[in-house]
Protein backbone atom coordinates (compact mmCIF):
# COMPACT_ATOMS: atom_id res chain seq x y z
CA UNK A 1 0.00 0.00 0.00
CA UNK A 2 2.64 2.57 0.95
CA UNK A 3 4.63 1.57 -2.09
CA UNK A 4 1.77 2.02 -4.47
CA UNK A 5 0.98 5.39 -2.87
CA UNK A 6 4.59 6.39 -3.30
CA UNK A 7 4.69 5.36 -6.91
CA UNK A 8 1.46 7.20 -7.60
CA UNK A 9 2.91 10.27 -6.01
CA UNK A 10 6.09 9.96 -8.02
CA UNK A 11 4.12 9.45 -11.19
CA UNK A 12 2.01 12.53 -10.61
CA UNK A 13 5.19 14.46 -9.86
CA UNK A 14 6.74 13.43 -13.12
CA UNK A 15 3.56 14.21 -15.01
CA UNK A 16 3.36 17.65 -13.44
CA UNK A 17 6.98 18.29 -14.34
CA UNK A 18 6.45 17.15 -17.90
CA UNK A 19 3.36 19.30 -18.26
CA UNK A 20 5.19 22.23 -16.76
CA UNK A 21 8.10 21.85 -19.16
CA UNK A 22 6.04 21.39 -22.26
CA UNK A 23 3.76 24.23 -21.13
CA UNK A 24 6.79 26.46 -20.77
CA UNK A 25 8.06 25.57 -24.20
CA UNK A 26 4.63 26.21 -25.72
CA UNK A 27 4.25 29.51 -23.94
CA UNK A 28 7.47 30.70 -25.53
CA UNK A 29 6.18 29.78 -28.94
CA UNK A 30 2.46 29.95 -29.08
CA UNK A 31 0.71 33.22 -29.66
CA UNK A 32 -2.91 34.19 -29.20
CA UNK A 33 -4.59 36.86 -31.27
CA UNK A 34 -7.93 38.47 -30.60
CA UNK A 35 -10.01 39.40 -33.64
CA UNK A 36 -12.88 41.74 -32.76
CA UNK A 37 -15.45 41.42 -35.50
CA UNK A 38 -19.12 41.98 -36.17
CA UNK A 39 -21.98 39.48 -36.23
CA UNK A 40 -22.31 37.74 -39.60
CA UNK A 41 -18.59 36.96 -40.00
CA UNK A 42 -18.82 34.16 -37.43
CA UNK A 43 -18.82 31.22 -39.84
CA UNK A 44 -16.27 32.74 -42.19
CA UNK A 45 -13.67 33.43 -39.51
CA UNK A 46 -14.16 30.08 -37.83
CA UNK A 47 -12.94 28.45 -41.01
CA UNK A 48 -10.39 31.12 -41.86
CA UNK A 49 -8.71 30.96 -38.44
CA UNK A 50 -7.94 27.27 -38.90
CA UNK A 51 -6.55 27.91 -42.36
CA UNK A 52 -4.38 30.75 -41.07
CA UNK A 53 -3.13 28.77 -38.06
CA UNK A 54 -2.02 25.94 -40.35
CA UNK A 55 -0.38 28.37 -42.76
CA UNK A 56 1.44 30.29 -40.01
CA UNK A 57 2.70 27.16 -38.29
CA UNK A 58 4.02 25.76 -41.56
CA UNK A 59 5.69 29.07 -42.33
CA UNK A 60 7.22 29.96 -38.98
CA UNK A 61 6.78 26.94 -36.71
CA UNK A 62 4.80 29.13 -34.31
CA UNK A 63 1.41 28.02 -33.10
CA UNK A 64 -1.24 30.67 -33.28
CA UNK A 65 -4.67 30.63 -31.72
CA UNK A 66 -7.17 33.24 -32.82
CA UNK A 67 -9.95 34.11 -30.44
CA UNK A 68 -13.03 35.82 -31.81
CA UNK A 69 -15.41 38.39 -30.44
CA UNK A 70 -18.63 39.07 -32.34
CA UNK A 71 -21.30 41.69 -31.80
CA UNK A 72 -22.82 44.79 -33.33
CA UNK A 73 -20.10 46.69 -35.22
CA UNK A 74 -20.52 49.93 -33.29
CA UNK A 75 -20.55 48.36 -29.85
CA UNK A 76 -17.51 46.25 -30.77
CA UNK A 77 -15.64 49.42 -31.73
CA UNK A 78 -16.63 51.00 -28.42
CA UNK A 79 -15.34 47.95 -26.52
CA UNK A 80 -11.96 48.27 -28.22
CA UNK A 81 -11.87 52.01 -27.46
CA UNK A 82 -12.69 51.21 -23.85
CA UNK A 83 -9.81 48.77 -23.62
CA UNK A 84 -10.77 45.41 -25.13
CA UNK A 85 -7.39 43.96 -26.10
CA UNK A 86 -8.00 43.44 -29.82
CA UNK A 87 -5.01 42.66 -32.02
CA UNK A 88 -7.07 43.17 -35.15
CA UNK A 89 -10.54 44.52 -35.83
CA UNK A 90 -12.67 43.37 -38.77
CA UNK A 91 -15.78 45.55 -38.62
CA UNK A 92 -18.75 46.43 -40.80
CA UNK A 93 -17.90 49.98 -41.75
CA UNK A 94 -14.96 52.34 -41.84
CA UNK A 95 -16.74 54.83 -39.59
CA UNK A 96 -16.46 52.44 -36.65
CA UNK A 97 -12.76 51.88 -37.36
CA UNK A 98 -12.20 55.64 -37.77
CA UNK A 99 -13.50 55.96 -34.23
CA UNK A 100 -10.51 53.93 -32.98
CA UNK A 101 -8.35 56.78 -34.24
CA UNK A 102 -10.64 59.69 -33.43
CA UNK A 103 -11.56 58.66 -29.91
CA UNK A 104 -8.55 56.79 -28.61
CA UNK A 105 -5.58 57.18 -31.02
CA UNK A 106 -5.27 53.40 -31.20
CA UNK A 107 -4.42 53.47 -34.91
CA UNK A 108 -2.97 56.10 -37.25
CA UNK A 109 -5.33 58.30 -39.26
CA UNK A 110 -4.29 56.76 -42.60
CA UNK A 111 -5.09 53.21 -41.44
CA UNK A 112 -7.29 52.51 -44.44
CA UNK A 113 -4.46 52.97 -46.94
CA UNK A 114 -2.25 50.33 -45.33
CA UNK A 115 -3.81 47.33 -47.04
CA UNK A 116 -5.11 46.94 -50.61
CA UNK A 117 -8.66 47.83 -51.68
CA UNK A 118 -9.36 50.29 -48.86
CA UNK A 119 -8.32 47.58 -46.40
CA UNK A 120 -11.34 45.51 -47.39
CA UNK A 121 -10.23 42.00 -48.41
CA UNK A 122 -13.81 40.97 -49.06
CA UNK A 123 -16.79 43.12 -49.90
CA UNK A 124 -20.50 42.81 -50.22
CA UNK A 125 -23.37 44.87 -51.47
CA UNK A 126 -26.90 45.71 -50.54
CA UNK A 127 -29.63 43.59 -52.11
CA UNK A 128 -33.35 43.08 -51.71
CA UNK A 129 -34.65 39.88 -50.17
CA UNK A 130 -38.26 39.02 -51.11
CA UNK A 131 -40.60 36.14 -50.39
CA UNK A 132 -40.73 33.12 -52.74
CA UNK A 133 -42.26 33.89 -56.10
CA UNK A 134 -41.79 37.62 -55.48
CA UNK A 135 -45.54 38.19 -54.97
CA UNK A 136 -45.22 42.00 -54.92
CA UNK A 137 -43.09 41.94 -58.06
CA UNK A 138 -40.17 43.87 -56.62
CA UNK A 139 -37.48 44.49 -59.22
CA UNK A 140 -35.51 47.49 -58.08
CA UNK A 141 -35.27 50.28 -55.53
CA UNK A 142 -38.23 52.09 -57.16
CA UNK A 143 -40.61 49.39 -55.98
CA UNK A 144 -39.78 50.13 -52.34
CA UNK A 145 -41.57 53.48 -52.38
CA UNK A 146 -44.83 51.92 -53.64
CA UNK A 147 -47.66 52.39 -51.17
CA UNK A 148 -48.52 48.67 -51.14
CA UNK A 149 -45.03 47.51 -50.19
CA UNK A 150 -43.80 47.06 -46.63
CA UNK A 151 -40.06 47.36 -46.17
CA UNK A 152 -37.99 45.83 -43.35
CA UNK A 153 -34.69 47.46 -42.49
CA UNK A 154 -33.05 48.17 -39.12
CA UNK A 155 -32.62 51.63 -37.65
CA UNK A 156 -29.52 53.30 -39.11
CA UNK A 157 -29.06 55.25 -35.89
CA UNK A 158 -28.30 52.05 -33.98
CA UNK A 159 -27.20 49.60 -36.68
CA UNK A 160 -24.03 50.06 -38.68
CA UNK A 161 -25.24 47.63 -41.33
CA UNK A 162 -28.44 49.57 -41.81
CA UNK A 163 -26.47 52.70 -42.66
CA UNK A 164 -25.29 50.92 -45.82
CA UNK A 165 -28.93 50.18 -46.70
CA UNK A 166 -29.89 53.80 -46.30
CA UNK A 167 -26.90 55.06 -48.28
CA UNK A 168 -27.51 52.54 -51.08
CA UNK A 169 -31.08 53.80 -51.50
CA UNK A 170 -29.94 57.42 -51.34
CA UNK A 171 -27.20 56.80 -53.88
CA UNK A 172 -29.61 55.09 -56.25
CA UNK A 173 -32.02 58.03 -56.12
CA UNK A 174 -29.19 60.52 -56.51
CA UNK A 175 -27.98 58.65 -59.57
CA UNK A 176 -31.46 58.44 -61.06
CA UNK A 177 -32.74 61.97 -60.37
CA UNK A 178 -29.41 63.77 -59.96
CA UNK A 179 -30.91 65.88 -57.20
CA UNK A 180 -30.48 65.83 -53.42
CA UNK A 181 -34.03 66.98 -52.75
CA UNK A 182 -35.43 64.12 -54.85
CA UNK A 183 -33.13 61.67 -53.09
CA UNK A 184 -34.45 62.92 -49.76
CA UNK A 185 -38.05 62.34 -50.83
CA UNK A 186 -37.20 58.91 -52.19
CA UNK A 187 -35.53 57.71 -48.99
CA UNK A 188 -38.27 59.31 -46.89
CA UNK A 189 -40.90 57.38 -48.82
CA UNK A 190 -39.02 54.12 -48.25
CA UNK A 191 -38.87 54.70 -44.49
CA UNK A 192 -42.56 55.61 -44.49
CA UNK A 193 -43.12 51.99 -45.59
CA UNK A 194 -41.17 50.55 -42.66
CA UNK A 195 -43.59 49.08 -40.09
CA UNK A 196 -40.99 47.88 -37.57
CA UNK A 197 -37.66 49.56 -37.01
CA UNK A 198 -35.40 47.02 -35.30
CA UNK A 199 -32.28 48.33 -33.57
CA UNK A 200 -30.02 45.69 -35.11
CA UNK A 201 -29.75 43.55 -38.24
CA UNK A 202 -30.31 40.29 -36.36
CA UNK A 203 -33.64 41.51 -34.99
CA UNK A 204 -34.71 42.76 -38.41
CA UNK A 205 -33.96 39.37 -39.97
CA UNK A 206 -36.08 37.82 -37.24
CA UNK A 207 -38.93 40.20 -38.01
CA UNK A 208 -38.87 39.40 -41.71
CA UNK A 209 -38.19 35.67 -41.54
CA UNK A 210 -39.83 34.45 -38.33
CA UNK A 211 -42.59 37.04 -37.90
CA UNK A 212 -43.22 37.13 -41.65
CA UNK A 213 -43.71 40.87 -41.57
CA UNK A 214 -42.91 42.95 -44.64
CA UNK A 215 -42.60 42.27 -48.36
CA UNK A 216 -38.97 43.12 -48.82
CA UNK A 217 -35.95 43.04 -46.56
CA UNK A 218 -33.01 45.29 -47.37
CA UNK A 219 -29.95 43.24 -46.53
CA UNK A 220 -26.27 42.71 -47.08
CA UNK A 221 -25.82 40.24 -49.90
CA UNK A 222 -23.95 37.74 -47.71
CA UNK A 223 -26.65 37.86 -45.04
CA UNK A 224 -29.36 37.51 -47.65
CA UNK A 225 -27.63 34.34 -48.86
CA UNK A 226 -27.41 33.05 -45.30
CA UNK A 227 -31.14 33.67 -44.82
CA UNK A 228 -31.94 31.84 -48.03
CA UNK A 229 -29.61 28.92 -47.24
CA UNK A 230 -30.18 28.46 -43.56
CA UNK A 231 -33.54 29.87 -42.65
CA UNK A 232 -35.69 28.70 -45.49
CA UNK A 233 -34.45 27.33 -48.77
CA UNK A 234 -37.06 28.02 -51.41
CA UNK A 235 -38.90 30.50 -49.23
CA UNK A 236 -36.98 33.58 -50.25
CA UNK A 237 -35.48 35.09 -53.36
CA UNK A 238 -32.70 37.59 -53.76
CA UNK A 239 -33.40 40.55 -56.02
CA UNK A 240 -30.26 42.36 -57.07
CA UNK A 241 -31.01 46.04 -57.77
CA UNK A 242 -29.64 47.81 -60.85
CA UNK A 243 -27.39 50.08 -58.80
CA UNK A 244 -26.11 49.51 -55.32
CA UNK A 245 -23.35 50.43 -52.94
CA UNK A 246 -20.05 48.61 -52.51
CA UNK A 247 -20.13 47.57 -48.88
CA UNK A 248 -16.55 47.48 -47.66
CA UNK A 249 -16.09 45.90 -44.23
CA UNK A 250 -12.54 47.01 -43.45
CA UNK A 251 -9.83 45.34 -41.38
CA UNK A 252 -6.89 46.77 -39.50
CA UNK A 253 -4.24 45.92 -36.98
CA UNK A 254 -4.78 47.79 -33.70
CA UNK A 255 -1.32 49.35 -33.49
CA UNK A 256 -1.34 50.38 -29.85
CA UNK A 257 -2.35 46.86 -28.72
CA UNK A 258 -0.06 44.80 -30.94
CA UNK A 259 2.95 46.96 -30.10
CA UNK A 260 2.31 46.53 -26.40
CA UNK A 261 1.74 42.78 -26.69
CA UNK A 262 4.47 42.18 -29.26
CA UNK A 263 2.05 40.52 -31.67
CA UNK A 264 2.39 42.84 -34.64
CA UNK A 265 4.05 40.29 -36.88
CA UNK A 266 1.42 37.52 -36.66
CA UNK A 267 -1.43 40.06 -36.58
CA UNK A 268 -0.17 41.72 -39.75
CA UNK A 269 0.25 38.33 -41.41
CA UNK A 270 -3.25 37.37 -40.30
CA UNK A 271 -4.71 40.28 -42.25
CA UNK A 272 -2.46 39.93 -45.28
CA UNK A 273 -3.37 36.26 -45.57
CA UNK A 274 -6.97 37.40 -46.06
CA UNK A 275 -5.96 38.58 -49.53
CA UNK A 276 -4.46 35.21 -50.45
CA UNK A 277 -6.24 32.72 -52.68
CA UNK A 278 -7.25 30.35 -49.88
CA UNK A 279 -8.94 33.09 -47.89
CA UNK A 280 -10.49 34.68 -50.95
CA UNK A 281 -12.14 31.37 -51.84
CA UNK A 282 -13.32 30.99 -48.25
CA UNK A 283 -14.83 34.47 -48.39
CA UNK A 284 -16.67 33.54 -51.58
CA UNK A 285 -17.85 30.33 -50.00
CA UNK A 286 -19.30 32.35 -47.12
CA UNK A 287 -21.02 34.72 -49.55
CA UNK A 288 -18.67 37.67 -49.34
CA UNK A 289 -17.47 38.99 -52.70
CA UNK A 290 -13.74 38.27 -52.97
CA UNK A 291 -11.66 41.36 -53.77
CA UNK A 292 -9.41 39.31 -56.05
CA UNK A 293 -11.06 39.60 -59.50
CA UNK A 294 -9.86 36.16 -60.61
CA UNK A 295 -11.49 34.46 -57.65
CA UNK A 296 -14.58 36.63 -57.90
CA UNK A 297 -14.96 35.29 -61.44
CA UNK A 298 -15.00 31.73 -60.09
CA UNK A 299 -18.13 32.67 -58.16
CA UNK A 300 -19.78 34.55 -61.02
CA UNK A 301 -22.90 32.37 -60.92
CA UNK A 302 -23.37 33.44 -57.32
CA UNK A 303 -22.57 37.13 -57.59
CA UNK A 304 -24.28 38.85 -60.53
CA UNK A 305 -22.74 42.03 -61.85
CA UNK A 306 -24.12 45.18 -60.30
CA UNK A 307 -23.17 48.78 -60.84
CA UNK A 308 -21.50 49.45 -57.51
CA UNK A 309 -20.49 52.77 -56.03
CA UNK A 310 -18.40 53.39 -52.97
CA UNK A 311 -19.23 55.63 -50.03
CA UNK A 312 -16.31 57.82 -51.13
CA UNK A 313 -17.83 58.34 -54.63
CA UNK A 314 -21.28 59.17 -53.43
CA UNK A 315 -20.82 60.73 -50.03
CA UNK A 316 -17.18 61.77 -49.75
CA UNK A 317 -16.27 59.23 -47.09
CA UNK A 318 -17.83 57.82 -43.98
CA UNK A 319 -17.16 60.73 -41.65
CA UNK A 320 -19.09 62.96 -44.01
CA UNK A 321 -21.93 60.50 -44.49
CA UNK A 322 -22.29 60.01 -40.75
CA UNK A 323 -22.21 63.74 -40.03
CA UNK A 324 -24.73 64.68 -42.71
CA UNK A 325 -27.15 61.80 -42.45
CA UNK A 326 -27.04 59.91 -39.18
CA UNK A 327 -25.90 62.19 -36.37
CA UNK A 328 -28.51 63.92 -34.25
CA UNK A 329 -30.23 66.62 -36.24
CA UNK A 330 -29.05 65.00 -39.48
CA UNK A 331 -31.05 64.08 -42.56
CA UNK A 332 -32.36 60.82 -41.13
CA UNK A 333 -33.74 62.64 -38.07
CA UNK A 334 -35.54 65.06 -40.38
CA UNK A 335 -37.01 62.12 -42.29
CA UNK A 336 -38.27 60.51 -39.08
CA UNK A 337 -39.77 63.74 -37.82
CA UNK A 338 -41.53 64.22 -41.15
CA UNK A 339 -43.00 60.71 -41.30
CA UNK A 340 -44.14 60.33 -37.72
Amino acid at each position, binding site marked *: MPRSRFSRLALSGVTALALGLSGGALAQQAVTLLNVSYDPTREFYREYNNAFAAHWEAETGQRVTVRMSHGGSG*SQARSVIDGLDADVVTLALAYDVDALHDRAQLIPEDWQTRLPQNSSPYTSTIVLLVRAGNPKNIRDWDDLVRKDVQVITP*NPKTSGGARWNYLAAWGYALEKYGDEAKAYEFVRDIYANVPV*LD*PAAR*GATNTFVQRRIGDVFIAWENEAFLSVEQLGRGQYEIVVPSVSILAEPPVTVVDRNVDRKGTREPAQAYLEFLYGETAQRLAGKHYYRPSNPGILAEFSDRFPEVKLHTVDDWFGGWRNAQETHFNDGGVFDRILAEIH
Partner: protein
Amino acid sequence: MTLALRQPSVIPGFGITLGFTLFYLGLILLIPIGAFLLYTAQMSWADFWQAVSHRQVVASYKLSFGASLIAALLNLVFGAIVAWVLVRYRFFGKRVIDALVDLPFAMPTAVAGIALVTLYASTGWVGQYLEILGLRVAYTQLGVVVALTYIGLPFVVRTVQPVLEDLDRELEEASAILGANRLTTLRRVILPALLPALLTGFALAFARALGEYGSVIFIAGNLPFRTEITPLLIVAKAEQYDYPGAAAIGTVMLLAAFVLLLLINALQWWTARYTRR
Protein backbone atom coordinates in the same frame (compact mmCIF):
# COMPACT_ATOMS: atom_id res chain seq x y z
CA MET B 1 -24.79 37.34 31.09
CA THR B 2 -23.48 40.90 31.28
CA LEU B 3 -21.35 40.11 28.29
CA ALA B 4 -24.40 39.02 26.39
CA LEU B 5 -26.13 42.24 27.32
CA ARG B 6 -23.33 44.35 26.03
CA GLN B 7 -23.32 42.52 22.72
CA PRO B 8 -26.89 42.55 21.47
CA SER B 9 -26.01 42.08 17.83
CA VAL B 10 -24.68 38.93 16.17
CA ILE B 11 -22.47 40.83 13.79
CA PRO B 12 -20.01 42.86 15.83
CA GLY B 13 -19.29 46.52 15.50
CA PHE B 14 -21.71 49.14 14.26
CA GLY B 15 -18.74 51.16 13.06
CA ILE B 16 -17.29 48.39 10.93
CA THR B 17 -20.55 47.29 9.37
CA LEU B 18 -21.64 50.84 8.60
CA GLY B 19 -18.25 51.57 7.15
CA PHE B 20 -18.48 48.50 4.99
CA THR B 21 -22.02 49.36 3.91
CA LEU B 22 -20.98 52.82 2.78
CA PHE B 23 -17.90 51.48 1.02
CA TYR B 24 -19.89 48.74 -0.71
CA LEU B 25 -22.69 51.05 -1.83
CA GLY B 26 -20.11 53.54 -3.00
CA LEU B 27 -18.31 50.95 -5.08
CA ILE B 28 -21.34 49.27 -6.58
CA LEU B 29 -23.77 52.16 -6.82
CA LEU B 30 -22.35 55.63 -6.42
CA ILE B 31 -19.23 55.41 -8.59
CA PRO B 32 -21.09 54.33 -11.76
CA ILE B 33 -23.80 56.92 -11.15
CA GLY B 34 -21.18 59.53 -10.38
CA ALA B 35 -19.34 58.68 -13.61
CA PHE B 36 -22.34 59.34 -15.76
CA LEU B 37 -23.34 62.43 -13.87
CA LEU B 38 -19.83 63.62 -14.63
CA TYR B 39 -20.46 63.09 -18.35
CA THR B 40 -23.62 65.13 -18.00
CA ALA B 41 -21.76 67.83 -16.10
CA GLN B 42 -19.51 68.41 -19.11
CA MET B 43 -22.46 69.75 -21.06
CA SER B 44 -23.62 73.32 -21.08
CA TRP B 45 -27.12 73.89 -19.77
CA ALA B 46 -28.38 74.67 -23.27
CA ASP B 47 -26.93 71.46 -24.72
CA PHE B 48 -28.36 69.46 -21.87
CA TRP B 49 -31.78 70.95 -22.35
CA GLN B 50 -31.66 70.37 -26.08
CA ALA B 51 -30.68 66.72 -25.59
CA VAL B 52 -33.37 65.91 -23.05
CA SER B 53 -36.25 67.97 -24.43
CA HIS B 54 -36.15 66.89 -28.07
CA ARG B 55 -39.60 65.97 -29.32
CA GLN B 56 -38.59 62.36 -30.00
CA VAL B 57 -37.07 62.00 -26.53
CA VAL B 58 -40.12 63.45 -24.82
CA ALA B 59 -42.36 61.03 -26.70
CA SER B 60 -40.18 58.19 -25.42
CA TYR B 61 -40.46 59.41 -21.79
CA LYS B 62 -44.21 59.27 -22.08
CA LEU B 63 -44.10 55.72 -23.37
CA SER B 64 -41.45 54.49 -20.94
CA PHE B 65 -43.02 55.98 -17.82
CA GLY B 66 -46.60 55.34 -18.94
CA ALA B 67 -46.09 51.73 -19.93
CA SER B 68 -44.00 51.02 -16.81
CA LEU B 69 -46.71 52.50 -14.62
CA ILE B 70 -49.48 50.48 -16.26
CA ALA B 71 -47.40 47.29 -16.11
CA ALA B 72 -46.61 47.85 -12.42
CA LEU B 73 -50.29 48.49 -11.66
CA LEU B 74 -51.30 45.29 -13.47
CA ASN B 75 -48.70 43.39 -11.49
CA LEU B 76 -49.89 45.01 -8.29
CA VAL B 77 -53.40 43.63 -8.73
CA PHE B 78 -52.68 40.28 -10.31
CA GLY B 79 -49.44 39.65 -8.45
CA ALA B 80 -51.33 40.08 -5.18
CA ILE B 81 -53.92 37.54 -6.31
CA VAL B 82 -51.20 35.07 -7.31
CA ALA B 83 -49.51 35.50 -3.93
CA TRP B 84 -52.84 34.98 -2.17
CA VAL B 85 -53.54 31.76 -4.05
CA LEU B 86 -50.04 30.43 -3.44
CA VAL B 87 -50.22 31.12 0.29
CA ARG B 88 -53.81 30.32 1.16
CA TYR B 89 -54.67 27.27 -0.91
CA ARG B 90 -53.26 23.80 -1.33
CA PHE B 91 -53.60 22.29 -4.75
CA PHE B 92 -51.90 19.93 -7.15
CA GLY B 93 -48.88 21.49 -8.85
CA LYS B 94 -48.59 24.39 -6.43
CA ARG B 95 -44.84 23.93 -6.05
CA VAL B 96 -44.39 24.06 -9.81
CA ILE B 97 -46.42 27.24 -10.13
CA ASP B 98 -44.50 28.74 -7.25
CA ALA B 99 -41.25 28.06 -9.07
CA LEU B 100 -42.65 29.36 -12.37
CA VAL B 101 -43.17 32.79 -10.83
CA ASP B 102 -39.43 33.33 -10.75
CA LEU B 103 -38.97 32.50 -14.40
CA PRO B 104 -38.94 36.12 -15.60
CA PHE B 105 -35.97 36.69 -13.26
CA ALA B 106 -34.00 33.84 -14.71
CA MET B 107 -34.81 34.02 -18.40
CA PRO B 108 -32.53 36.21 -20.54
CA THR B 109 -34.67 39.18 -21.45
CA ALA B 110 -33.96 38.86 -25.15
CA VAL B 111 -35.32 35.32 -25.07
CA ALA B 112 -38.41 36.58 -23.30
CA GLY B 113 -38.85 39.29 -25.92
CA ILE B 114 -38.55 36.87 -28.81
CA ALA B 115 -40.92 34.40 -27.13
CA LEU B 116 -43.50 37.12 -26.50
CA VAL B 117 -43.36 38.48 -30.02
CA THR B 118 -43.65 34.95 -31.41
CA LEU B 119 -46.85 34.52 -29.42
CA TYR B 120 -48.36 37.92 -30.03
CA ALA B 121 -47.37 38.67 -33.64
CA SER B 122 -50.33 38.52 -36.01
CA THR B 123 -49.06 35.13 -37.16
CA GLY B 124 -48.50 33.86 -33.60
CA TRP B 125 -50.55 31.47 -31.47
CA VAL B 126 -52.22 34.18 -29.46
CA GLY B 127 -51.84 37.08 -31.84
CA GLN B 128 -53.89 35.56 -34.65
CA TYR B 129 -56.96 35.32 -32.42
CA LEU B 130 -56.46 38.76 -30.93
CA GLU B 131 -56.20 40.07 -34.48
CA ILE B 132 -59.72 38.81 -35.15
CA LEU B 133 -60.89 40.81 -32.16
CA GLY B 134 -59.16 43.82 -33.68
CA LEU B 135 -56.47 43.84 -31.00
CA ARG B 136 -52.86 44.19 -32.04
CA VAL B 137 -50.21 43.59 -29.41
CA ALA B 138 -46.88 43.06 -31.16
CA TYR B 139 -45.29 46.28 -32.48
CA THR B 140 -47.68 48.51 -30.60
CA GLN B 141 -47.54 50.33 -27.27
CA LEU B 142 -49.65 47.51 -25.88
CA GLY B 143 -46.79 45.15 -26.69
CA VAL B 144 -44.46 47.26 -24.55
CA VAL B 145 -46.90 46.96 -21.63
CA VAL B 146 -47.11 43.19 -22.11
CA ALA B 147 -43.32 42.78 -22.04
CA LEU B 148 -42.96 45.02 -18.98
CA THR B 149 -45.74 43.18 -17.17
CA TYR B 150 -43.99 39.91 -17.86
CA ILE B 151 -40.62 40.98 -16.46
CA GLY B 152 -42.18 42.67 -13.42
CA LEU B 153 -44.41 39.82 -12.30
CA PRO B 154 -42.16 38.22 -9.66
CA PHE B 155 -41.62 41.43 -7.70
CA VAL B 156 -45.12 41.87 -6.28
CA VAL B 157 -45.64 38.14 -5.73
CA ARG B 158 -42.35 37.69 -3.93
CA THR B 159 -42.74 40.73 -1.66
CA VAL B 160 -46.35 40.01 -0.70
CA GLN B 161 -45.98 36.25 -0.21
CA PRO B 162 -43.95 36.22 3.06
CA VAL B 163 -46.10 38.95 4.61
CA LEU B 164 -49.22 37.02 3.76
CA GLU B 165 -47.72 33.88 5.26
CA ASP B 166 -47.13 35.70 8.54
CA LEU B 167 -50.59 37.19 8.59
CA ASP B 168 -52.62 35.64 11.40
CA ARG B 169 -55.76 33.97 10.13
CA GLU B 170 -57.26 34.54 13.56
CA LEU B 171 -57.48 38.21 12.72
CA GLU B 172 -59.86 37.42 9.87
CA GLU B 173 -61.84 35.08 12.08
CA ALA B 174 -62.07 37.74 14.77
CA SER B 175 -63.21 40.23 12.17
CA ALA B 176 -65.91 37.84 10.96
CA ILE B 177 -67.06 37.08 14.51
CA LEU B 178 -67.34 40.79 15.17
CA GLY B 179 -69.80 40.92 12.28
CA ALA B 180 -67.71 42.25 9.41
CA ASN B 181 -68.58 40.97 5.97
CA ARG B 182 -65.90 39.76 3.51
CA LEU B 183 -65.34 43.09 1.89
CA THR B 184 -64.93 44.88 5.19
CA THR B 185 -62.47 42.27 6.39
CA LEU B 186 -60.49 42.62 3.19
CA ARG B 187 -60.56 46.40 3.35
CA ARG B 188 -60.00 46.95 7.08
CA VAL B 189 -57.94 43.92 8.12
CA ILE B 190 -56.03 42.33 5.26
CA LEU B 191 -55.20 45.24 2.97
CA PRO B 192 -53.70 47.48 5.66
CA ALA B 193 -51.38 44.67 6.70
CA LEU B 194 -50.34 44.00 3.11
CA LEU B 195 -50.09 47.59 1.97
CA PRO B 196 -46.37 48.15 2.71
CA ALA B 197 -45.43 44.94 0.92
CA LEU B 198 -47.70 45.78 -2.01
CA LEU B 199 -46.14 49.21 -2.33
CA THR B 200 -42.63 47.78 -2.22
CA GLY B 201 -43.48 45.22 -4.88
CA PHE B 202 -45.08 47.90 -6.99
CA ALA B 203 -42.06 50.17 -6.68
CA LEU B 204 -39.67 47.36 -7.60
CA ALA B 205 -41.73 46.28 -10.60
CA PHE B 206 -41.99 49.88 -11.75
CA ALA B 207 -38.27 50.55 -11.40
CA ARG B 208 -37.39 47.34 -13.17
CA ALA B 209 -39.74 48.17 -16.04
CA LEU B 210 -38.23 51.62 -16.51
CA GLY B 211 -34.77 50.21 -17.12
CA GLU B 212 -35.82 47.24 -19.22
CA TYR B 213 -34.30 47.08 -22.70
CA GLY B 214 -33.73 43.51 -23.93
CA SER B 215 -37.25 42.17 -24.09
CA VAL B 216 -39.01 45.38 -25.12
CA ILE B 217 -37.03 46.10 -28.27
CA PHE B 218 -38.20 42.83 -29.80
CA ILE B 219 -41.88 43.45 -29.31
CA ALA B 220 -42.08 47.24 -29.51
CA GLY B 221 -41.47 47.81 -33.22
CA ASN B 222 -39.34 50.80 -32.16
CA LEU B 223 -41.01 53.37 -34.35
CA PRO B 224 -39.89 56.87 -33.38
CA PHE B 225 -42.52 58.94 -31.57
CA ARG B 226 -44.75 55.89 -31.17
CA THR B 227 -43.14 52.75 -29.80
CA GLU B 228 -39.63 53.86 -28.97
CA ILE B 229 -38.60 53.49 -25.32
CA THR B 230 -36.13 55.87 -23.69
CA PRO B 231 -33.37 53.27 -23.11
CA LEU B 232 -33.29 52.68 -26.89
CA LEU B 233 -32.64 56.38 -27.48
CA ILE B 234 -29.80 56.22 -24.97
CA VAL B 235 -28.30 53.35 -26.97
CA ALA B 236 -28.77 55.34 -30.18
CA LYS B 237 -26.87 58.29 -28.67
CA ALA B 238 -24.05 56.04 -27.49
CA GLU B 239 -23.90 54.54 -30.97
CA GLN B 240 -22.84 57.91 -32.38
CA TYR B 241 -20.35 58.35 -29.51
CA ASP B 242 -22.53 61.09 -28.04
CA TYR B 243 -21.83 59.96 -24.47
CA PRO B 244 -22.84 63.27 -22.86
CA GLY B 245 -26.16 63.16 -24.72
CA ALA B 246 -26.74 59.57 -23.62
CA ALA B 247 -25.80 60.47 -20.06
CA ALA B 248 -28.11 63.49 -20.11
CA ILE B 249 -31.16 61.39 -20.97
CA GLY B 250 -30.00 58.82 -18.44
CA THR B 251 -29.83 61.56 -15.81
CA VAL B 252 -33.41 62.60 -16.49
CA MET B 253 -34.55 58.98 -16.23
CA LEU B 254 -32.59 58.54 -13.03
CA LEU B 255 -33.93 61.68 -11.38
CA ALA B 256 -37.52 60.98 -12.37
CA ALA B 257 -37.26 57.39 -11.15
CA PHE B 258 -35.63 58.54 -7.93
CA VAL B 259 -38.38 61.07 -7.22
CA LEU B 260 -41.07 58.49 -7.94
CA LEU B 261 -39.45 55.88 -5.73
CA LEU B 262 -39.04 58.47 -3.00
CA LEU B 263 -42.75 59.28 -3.26
CA ILE B 264 -43.64 55.60 -3.02
CA ASN B 265 -41.39 55.24 0.01
CA ALA B 266 -43.00 58.26 1.62
CA LEU B 267 -46.41 56.76 0.93
CA GLN B 268 -45.24 53.53 2.53
CA TRP B 269 -43.95 55.34 5.57
CA TRP B 270 -47.20 57.26 5.84
CA THR B 271 -49.37 54.15 5.56
CA ALA B 272 -47.20 52.35 8.11
CA ARG B 273 -47.83 55.16 10.58
CA TYR B 274 -51.46 55.40 9.64
CA THR B 275 -52.21 51.71 10.02
CA ARG B 276 -50.20 51.21 13.19
CA ARG B 277 -52.56 53.46 15.06
